[in-house]
């Protein structure tokens, strides 16, 4: 167990009372994970499903979790996979296209209810949606979660070098989309 691991209190509690320990996990991570998921799946209902599935999955495997790993990257990895599962299911049953967030949010009840961004934020979200799926994840984790490349490497099982290159290209693409409309 790392000395400076911010989740050492969770690890200790999981050893003595797994229910209380898990409650602390939910308390500490539900909001962060929700926003990570929401930025990927966009729709609140989908994010809600993915979040609950994430914690159910984590609960089922809490006995196998080794506290040499990071609870933070472990949970983010599960949440990312749950989000991709939902996105893939949605792609197959595409009743709603989310390629153009602007018109989606302008024209649907869901959109107007659950999106509160100004024009600039809408354009940024639209630009992010144009990125390939994996690159979008990299961009979100770096830009919105300020995750280190080392942690991202554990979440996505990808080398640090590849992630740095991916983020650099994502920024270029987004700038280009926003500048050129």
């Amino acid at each position, binding site marked *: 167990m790392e000395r400076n691991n911010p989740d050492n209190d969770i690890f200790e509690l999981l050893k003595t009372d*797994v229910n209380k320990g*898990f*409650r602390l996990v939910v308390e500490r991570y539900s909001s962060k994970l929700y926003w990570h998921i929401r930025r990927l799946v966009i729709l*609140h209902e989908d994010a809600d499903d993915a979040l609950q599935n994430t914690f159910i999955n984590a609960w089922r495997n809490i006995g196998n979790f080794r506290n040499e790993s990071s609870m933070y990257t472990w949970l983010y990895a599960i949440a990312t996979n749950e989000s991709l599962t939902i996105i893939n299911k949605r792609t197959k049953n595409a009743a709603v296209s989310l390629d153009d967030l602007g018109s989606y949010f302008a024209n649907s009840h869901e959109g107007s209810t*659950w*999106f509160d961004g100004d024009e600039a934020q809408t354009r940024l979200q639209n*630009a992010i949606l144009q990125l390939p799926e994996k690159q979008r994840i990299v961009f979100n984790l770096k*830009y919105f979660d300020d995750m280190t490349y080392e942690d991202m490497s554990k979440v996505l099982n990808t080398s640090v070098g590849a992630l740095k290159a991916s983020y650099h290209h994502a920024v270029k693409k987004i700038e280009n989309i926003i500048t050129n409309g």
Partner: protein
Amino acid sequence: MMKEFKDISNKSPFKVPDNYFEEVKRKIISSTSGYSSVTKKISSFRKLRPYLAVAASIAVLVILSYTFIHIFSSGKDKTGLPEITLNEFSDNYLNDIDILTLEQSAGTIEPDMAWIEMTSKDIIDYLVLENIDINDIYEQL
């Protein structure tokens, strides 16, 4: 003028329903707390384990006692057979059994011919009747 994207707030523009996070935490905890009932089943069995150990130990003791009593009172020529004290019997034959546990239990359990015939299967069947899950039992063996 269009902002550069780095000037755009990285605060999320998405909204959530009121009280969403409190509700979802409650849902998650209630859907995962079912684990505790499985833990309780296992705990019950673990609580019984020492008593099973005592029961098995006493069964061995009674069987040995019966055997020795049978040998010593068989009516045949006892000449030359060494006398054996209880301490010698304990030292030689009960090394693997927790003597303190046996002494503590001696007053509470009546030697009964039924114990002599109790097998592992009998003990397991008993536990199943006591609503202990058979898979939990086999996990402990």
